[in-house]
C-alpha cells in the first residue's frame, strides 16, 4: 500500500529543487517557502495518478505557483494582478560594456536585483534562466499563452539588466 508514495518520490524527486527555488522566488521568506513546498508536495501526491500531461516538472511547478498564490491571497500581499500593471517597456540596447558589467556581478547582487523586480518578472526569469524551462513549459506553469511568455521574458530581461548595470538613459 506504500507503493504509490514511493512512486511519487521517484516522480517528484528530479524536480524538488526547482520547486523549492520557485517557491523562494514567489514568497521570498524561507519559512513560507518551506510551507509552500510541503503543501505542494502533498497536493501533487494526491493527484499525481491523474496526471497525464507531458511535463511532470511543469505540472509540479504550476502547483507550487498555485499554492504560493493562495498564500499571497491569505496574506493579502502583492496581488500578481497588480504587479502586471507595473511592468514597463523594453529599453534600447545599451553599450556593449553592459555585458562586461553584468559578468562582474556576484550571486548576492543578482538575488538582490531579482528581489527588486515585480513577481511576474522574477518568476519568468527564474523558470527560463535557472530552471531552463521551454516556453511551452513556462506557458503551462503560468497558464498564459506562449506569446505572453515571450513578451514578459523580454521585459523581464531588460528590467533586470537595468537593475544590475543601471539605465544608461537615466541621470543616476
Amino acid at each position: 500500500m506504500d507503493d504509490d508514495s514511493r512512486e511519487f518520490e521517484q516522480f517528484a524527486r528530479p524536480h524538488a529543487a526547482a520547486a523549492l527555488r520557485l517557491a523562494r522566488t514567489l514568497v521570498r521568506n524561507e519559512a513560507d517557502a518551506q510551507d509552500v513546498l510541503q503543501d505542494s508536495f502533498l497536493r501533487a501526491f494526491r493527484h499525481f495518478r491523474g496526471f497525464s500531461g507531458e511535463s511532470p516538472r511543469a505540472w509540479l511547478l504550476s502547483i507550487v505557483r498555485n499554492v504560493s498564490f493562495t498564500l499571497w491571497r491569505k496574506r493579502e500581499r502583492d496581488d500578481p494582478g497588480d504587479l502586471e500593471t507595473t511592468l514597463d517597456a523594453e529599453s534600447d540596447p545599451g553599450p556593449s560594456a553592459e555585458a562586461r558589467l553584468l559578468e562582474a556581478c556576484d550571486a548576492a547582487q543578482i538575488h538582490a536585483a531579482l528581489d527588486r523586480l515585480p513577481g511576474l518578472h522574477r518568476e519568468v526569469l527564474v523558470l527560463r534562466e535557472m530552471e531552463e524551462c521551454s516556453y511551452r513549459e513556462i506557458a503551462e506553469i503560468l497558464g498564459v499563452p506562449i506569446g505572453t511568455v515571450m513578451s514578459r521574458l523580454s521585459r523581464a530581461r531588460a528590467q533586470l539588466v537595468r537593475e544590475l548595470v543601471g539605465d544608461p538613459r537615466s541621470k543616476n
Partner: protein
Amino acid sequence: METFDEHPRGALHAYLDGELSLEGSLEVEAHLSTCSPCRRQLETYRALRRVLQQARAAAPEAETALVRVTRSVRARRRRAFAIGGLGAMAAAAVVALVLIPRAGGGMVQEVAAVHARALESGRSVELASSDPLALGQWLSARLPGAVPPTAGGDGFALRGARVDSLDGRPVATAVYQVRSHLVDVFAWPSAERDMEPRPSVAGRWTVCRWSHRGVAYWMVSEAGTEDLKALAALIKERRT
C-alpha cells in the same frame, strides 16, 4: 516568412532561448550580421544568462522535504490500519481520500477564482468553436481522457474550450454563454455516484457541482442558480 524591417525584438529572445525554427534562426542571424545594436543586446542577454545560472542556488533540502511528506503519509496510513483493525475499510478510506478532490468550500472558492482569472485575462477560450466534436478532439489531444463538451441550445451557446487547472490538476473546460454571461464547465471522469446539481454562491459567482454517468461537473458563472441548473439539464439530456 516575414523579414525584419526593424529589430526582431521578440525573435531575438526566442533565438537566444532556442525556440525558433531553423528558418527563423537563419533570419535572425542574417539580421544580426548587419545590426550591431541587436548584436550588443544579444551579448548582454547572454551575459545575463551566465550570471543568473551561476547564481542558481543548490536546494538539497527540497528532497528532504519531499521524503518528509511521503513518510508522513505512510505513517498516517499505518496508524489508520492499526486503530480500526479493519484493514480493508481503512485502505478504502485512504484510497477515497487520494482519489476524490476536495469537495468542500475550498473547491467552490477555487472554481470561482479560476473563472475570475480566465475572465480577467480575456482568455476564457483557447479554441473558439461551437462544434462539440471539434472541441472534444482538441481537448483530448491535450488531455487524454478529457470529457468532450456537449452542443449548446435552449439559450446556451457553446463558445469554445480550454484546458485549465483545478486543485492542481489539468481539467477540460467547456465555455458556454447565456445572455451576456460566460459559464465555465469543468468536467472529468469520476467514480462518484450520480448527484443532482448543488448550487452555491461565492461572492458574485454562482458555482454548481453535479455528477452524471461517471462524470463530475463543476460549473461557475455570474449567471444565476436557475441558469446553471438549466445548463446542467441540457448537458444531461445531450449526454444521454
